[in-house]
C-alpha cells in the first residue's frame, strides 16, 4: 500500500474533527481487539484449552462476557476481542454523528444516523431481541 503524498481532501478539511476521531477510534479499536483476541488465545492455550469441545461453550453470549471474565474464562476474553473488533466500525459512526452535529452539518448527522440505525438493527438481531426468521 502506498500512502505517500500529502493529500488535501476538500471535504476532509471541512470535516477535520471527524477525520481525527474516526482515525483515533479505528486505531484504538484495532489494537484493543487484537490484544484481547491474542491474549485470550494464548491464555486459553496456556491453561489447557478448557471448554473448547463444543461450539456452545466456545461462543460466549454478549450478556455473559463480563460474568465469564470474572470467572476467569479465557474464551470470554477471545469473544470480547471479536466483539470489540465488530464494534469498532460502529463506534466510528457514533463519532461521525457527534462531530457532524458539533459542526452543525445536519445532513451528515442524518446520513450517519441512518447507517447507524441499520447497524443497530443488525446488533438487535444478534442479541435476539427480535427474531425475523
Amino acid at each position: 500500500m502506498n500512502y505517500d503524498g500529502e493529500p488535501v481532501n476538500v471535504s476532509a478539511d471541512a470535516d477535520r474533527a471527524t477525520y481525527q476521531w474516526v482515525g483515533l477510534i479505528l486505531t484504538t479499536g484495532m489494537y484493543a481487539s487484537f490484544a484481547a483476541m491474542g491474549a485470550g488465545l494464548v491464555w486459553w492455550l496456556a491453561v489447557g484449552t478448557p471448554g473448547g469441545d463444543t461450539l456452545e461453550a466456545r461462543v460466549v453470549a454478549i450478556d455473559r462476557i463480563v460474568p465469564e471474565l470474572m470467572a476467569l474464562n479465557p474464551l470470554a476474553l477471545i469473544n470480547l476481542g471479536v466483539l470489540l473488533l465488530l464494534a469498532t466500525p460502529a463506534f466510528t459512526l457514533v463519532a461521525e454523528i457527534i462531530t457532524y452535529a458539533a459542526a452543525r452539518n445536519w445532513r451528515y448527522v442524518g446520513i450517519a444516523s441512518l447507517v447507524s440505525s441499520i447497524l443497530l438493527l443488525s446488533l438487535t438481531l444478534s442479541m435476539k431481541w427480535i427474531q425475523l426468521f
Partner: protein
Amino acid sequence: MDIFFYIGLAITGFMAGLLGALLGLGGGVFVVPALVLIFGIPELKAIGTSNVAVVATSTAGASTYVRSRLANIRLGLVLLISTTLAALLSSLVASLLPARLLSGLFAVVLFYVAITMLRSGNTKDQPLEPMEGGDKTSKALGLEGTYHDAASGQTERYSPRNVRTGMGISALAGVVAGLLGVGGGIIQMPVMNLLMRIPLKVATGTSNFMIGVTATSAAFVRYANGDVDPLIAVPTALFVFLGAKVGAWLVPRTPNARLKQIFGWVAIVIALLMITRALGFDLVPGR
C-alpha cells in the same frame, strides 16, 4: 481440534491475507474456499469467519487511509446507506439458502475475480482523465475533494459523478458481503473508479473505510446464528491481518501484472473446485 488444525488455519489465514494484499483484494475471496475445501468447515461458518477477518483487515487499512485523508468519509457514508442494508438483508437470507448453493454462488464470484485479474494482468493501467464538474447530487452533498498524486506531483481535484446510480450498484457489494463473506471491494472499486470517476487512490481508501462497516452489519447476524466460531475466526483473522501486512510490504517489490495472470488461473481452479462441491462432490469430510 488439534494443534495441526490451528497451524493449518494460521497458514491459510496468512496466505489469504498475503494474496489478497498482493492482488488488491480482501482476504475473504481466498479464506472461504480454503476453509470449505481444505478444512471441511460448513459454508456458513466459513462465511462468518471470513466476515470477522474482513473487518480486521479493513479496520487496519482504514485507520491508515483515514489518517492520511485518502478516504472520503462523506462519500463512504452516502454509499453505505445501500451497502449496509443490502449486507444485513442478504446475511439473513444466507441462513435460509442451501450450503451447496452458497458454494455455487461463490464460484460465480471467483470466476468474476479471475476474469478481472486476467484482464488487468494483460493491460496496463490507464489513468483516468482529471475529473471535474460532478453531478448535482455530488455538489448538493458536498462530495468534492482534492488529493495529491505523488507520482505526478500534481494536486488533482475530483467530483464524483453518477452518485445515485453508484448508490444502487453499491448495494451489490453489500449483497456479496452478506451472502458470501467477502469484503465487496471487488464490486465497490470499479463502481467508484469507473462509474463515479473517483481517482483510484481515493476509491481504495474510501472502499477500505466502507468494507469494515458493511462486513460488521453482516457479521453481527452471523455471530447471532452461531456461525462465528471464535476459535476458528480469531486465529484466521489475526493471520489474515499479518499476511495482509506482509503483502502490502511486498506489493512494490512484486511484478503485479504477472502475479495477477497466475492467480487469475488459480482463482479459476478454486472456482471449479467450489462448483464440484456445489454439485455434491466433497473433497474432505465436513466438520
